[in-house]
């Protein structure tokens, strides 16, 4: 991601330099330095890549293919600044996300960085005019086919929505909700219990941790109904259930096979009795045959035919 961003910055720089070189009268040196500043202060992450990009810049520069644009099409300093901040926060969020992928902690760990990212993006996309009566929405978000800033943001937004983190985080991304915190506490209790009895016989564990586990399960069920689940909770619950059922084998055993078989064979036996008894005891329905009136010309006709022949 940051690679692309740097590329973008370098491109801007390039355009400016070109403009300068071509000797546009309206362009002053001070402006040029202003333009350069954001690039120089460009993110730390970009440092590594800048070396890689140098040759490309050089080659383009040497060819001098790009000429400058008139001033009113350029983006303002303010917007460049915003873009810069956006990039910084973007990197922060992604950096937070990746280590939280497994086991999933994306909501607990990264909600604050996401909140900051959202703030920046809202600044960019808002209608409000910044200093110097400029709105960065059009220039940054939708002035080209790629719409890079928008795409980058919407990808992360999708992730956020998919993870349902909204359900676990309070408004304005202040903190985790109380329900989430409570769930985490209960979860911790259960895990502690598991750890305590992990050694040795698992039946012990199944018996002793049953109550906490069931409490956790019920809590989870309740939250599921209230739609207050997020991916962190779901994943944690999933893992706990797997531990409980697969590792410790605490699922319910199939115990009453005999009773079930007895009841069902009794049920299956009933229709046989029914059909047998109705076969033996019920009288058959009778029908009376009716001989319809027919002209018995059939045979007589044949006779006539015989006579004729």
């Amino acid at each position, binding site marked *: 991601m940051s690679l692309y961003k740097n590329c973008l910055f370098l491109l801007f720089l390039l355009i400016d330099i070109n403009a300068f070189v071509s000797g546009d009268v309206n362009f002053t040196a001070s402006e040029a330095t202003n333009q350069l500043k954001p690039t120089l202060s460009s993110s730390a992450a970009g440092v590594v890549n800048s070396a890689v990009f140098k040759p490309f810049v050089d080659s383009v520069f040497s060819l001098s293919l790009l000429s400058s644009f008139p001033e009113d099409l350029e983006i303002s300093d303010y917007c460049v600044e915003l873009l810069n901040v956006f990039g910084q926060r973007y990197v922060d969020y992604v950096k937070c996300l990746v280590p939280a992928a497994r086991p999933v902690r994306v909501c607990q760990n990264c909600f604050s960085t996401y909140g900051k990212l959202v703030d920046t993006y809202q600044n960019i996309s808002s209608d409000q005019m910044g200093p110097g009566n400029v709105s960065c929405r059009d220039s940054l978000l939708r002035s080209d086919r790629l719409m890079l800033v928008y795409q980058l943001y919407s990808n992360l937004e999708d992730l956020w929505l998919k993870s349902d983190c909204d359900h676990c985080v309070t408004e304005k991304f202040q903190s985790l909700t109380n329900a989430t915190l409570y769930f985490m506490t209960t979860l911790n209790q259960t895990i502690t219990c598991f750890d305590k009895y992990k050694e040795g016989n698992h039946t012990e564990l199944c018996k002793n941790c049953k109550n906490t586990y069931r409490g956790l*399960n019920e809590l989870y069920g309740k939250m599921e109904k209230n739609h207050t689940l997020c991916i962190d909770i779901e994943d944690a*619950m*999933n893992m706990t*259930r*797997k531990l*409980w*059922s*697969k590792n410790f084998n605490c*699922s*319910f*055993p*199939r*115990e*009453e*096979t005999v*009773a*079930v*078989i*007895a*009841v*069902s064979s009794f*049920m*299956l036996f*009933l*229709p046989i009795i*029914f*059909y047998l008894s*109705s*076969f033996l005891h*019920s009288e*058959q*329905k*009778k*029908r*009376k*045959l*009716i*001989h*319809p*009136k*027919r*002209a018995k*010309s*059939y045979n007589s*006709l*044949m006779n006539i*035919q015989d006579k004729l022949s």
Partner: protein
Amino acid sequence: MANITKKVSWSSRADESAAAGEATPLLNGSEQPQHSRQVRLAWKLTWGANLEIGRLSTVDLEEEITSEEVKSELQTSPTHTLFCLLLLSLDYDNIENQLFLEEERRMSYMGFRCLEISRWVVCGLIGFLTGLIACFIDIVVEQLAGIKYQVVKENIEKFTEAGGLSISLILWAVLNFTFVMVGAIIVAFFEPIAAGSGIPQIKCYLNGVKIPRVVRLKTLVIKVCGVICSVVGGLAVGKEGPMIHSGAVVAAGVSQGRSTSLKRDFKIFEYFRRDTEKRDFVSAGAAAGVSAAFGAPVGGVLFSLEEGASFWNQMLTWRIFFASMISTFTLNFFLSIYHANPGDLSNPGLINFGRFEGDSVTYNLYEIPLFIAMGAIGGLLGALFNVLNYWLTIFRIRYVHRPCLQVMEAMLVAAVTATVSFTMIYFSNDCQPLGPESTEEYPLQLFCADGEYNSMATAFFNTPERSVRSLFHNQPGTYNPLTLGLFTLTYFFLACWTYGLAVSAGVFIPSLLIGAAWGRLCGILLASITSTSSIWADPGKYALIGAAAQLGGIVRMTLSLTVIMVEATGNVTYGLPIMLVLMTAKIVGDYFEEGLYDIHIKLQSVPFLHWEAPATSHWLTAREVMSSPVTCLNRIEKVGTIVDILSNTSTNHNGFPVVVQVPGTKLCGLILRSQLIVLLKHKVFVELARSRLTRRKLQLKDFRDAYPRFPPIQSIHVSQDERECMMDLTEFMNPTPYTVPQETSLPRVFKLFRALGLRHLVVVDDENRVVGLVTRKDLARYHLGKHGLEELQLAQT
């Protein structure tokens, strides 16, 4: 226009016999020249011998089956070799008597336009009401089934831990048992005709057989309640077939503008109170029912076309299509309100197959042979289903014919269904993780790990429609092959056992479910065999093909079923495979056994006329087919004679040729029993007319008011004096009945009957004397059996 009608009516009034005489040449062309008759008679000799053998062998068969003496004339009921005498025909032929002509003359141009408009209004109403009923059934079933499954689920969860799952089993069984008991009691004791899917009955109605009480309001009520009970009761049934019947009843009711059951007459649509008009509306109602059930308006129209196509024209088709569309739209609209997003019209049909989208729709040329093979499997399984159901139905008709026994049987089936389902779920080891977009409404965990659910339970512990949908659309890997195999096997037998019980329930959904299960199994196996290409990976596609194959193998519908499936999946891409599959299924299935509906029509001893006369029947002439001698009436007949003829229980004729005694007895018209009864009721006697001149003239309206339940002759009191009066039938009889000469061949007679919807066909000799009468029963008794042409027997229940 008016002038011409006047002239015709005048001339026919003046000379009845001449008019009747003119009717005969209509078919004189069918008389064959003498020399070709010689050849035909020679043929007849050889074939006649065959016929005798055929008859004998049928009798032998009877003896084997029933082990009773045929000579005693007491035949054990009912094999398909019998006809029920009580089933009457409908009068689809318009009676053009003088009253009719007069009424037509009085009617203005505007009157006819209004009639046309009111036909459209009636069709709209039919669609609307059918949609409403479908919506009602859907919502009630969903609610009640939801409650039931919730209760059972909670119970199972409680007892999984505490022990005592057999109690859950009993609870489930008892719940099913109770619902089905209610459903079976109302059907068996109050309206037996509401049993089953109702499609055979509607088929018969459109064919022209008057099945008693089939289109009554009471039947509709019982049908709707019965369907709800049986689906909620967890039987292996669907609510789609009954929807068609319901639509037909709605149509028959609305178009008449009154309800005889409720004794309300709204005084509207009086013109439509005859069989011809009613039949048109009933076919519209059936179409609306199909379209509400499957969300398939075109499929509905084609269903009506397939089942009763002998009377179609473009305007009627267009109207029927209108009714279908309105019905789907209504259902959509009200379901959208129910699902709390009014205005969203994407809920077509009671059964929603869901959308097949994305990669799952694609199929390749090399898959076509596979589909055809699946069609063949479907045909085989369908034939097996039908054979089993045939024997079961025979057993039921013979031994389980009392209502209380029928109720008990239905209850037992319900209990066993619950038991089998529970046992399958209990012993299933197929656990699947709860998906993120989990479609299972009532996931059962039982002995699965936490966070997983029993996969068998999604198939059994659910209403059948939902199971079908999950088989179509769940991701690959949702079901184990073993689960699917077991499910197919058990559900096959359960569905086969259930169809024919005294509950109102359809066979569409169970067939689809069986087919979807083994189709999905095929898909999974194919994927595991090849394992390389991803094209096999979607078992949902094979589930759909399997469902189509199984349904086609059981009901053997072709055109309409293809369109219904295509419309219900909302995907034209599958048109070709579905068509091929249905064709194969029909061809393979027909080799072994008839379609399920045809079997049931036969078992109900209905004189059903198929598309064509049986092959190799050209040598049979009207002379052999007709009933003779015929009870004729004179044009001016004594009341006593008429009453005696009508009261004669042993004959029970419905149409009487009217003859006039100029030099010999010549045919001059045909009059129906219902008309005679109305005449007797209003005492239209010659003497009375003379004495009271101010007396109101009888109008067509009087006949319509009595329609369709004409009082029996016993309820009409005729005094001794009145018996001596005379009745003039001239005005009321149909002066131009269809007649054929004696030498007309059976297929020709058959074609007349089928195409014109006739009820009586008079056979006359060359001097226009009545020699016989051909009715539906005379024609339907011939069928092509294994030993050539066979003749069926008439029977009285």
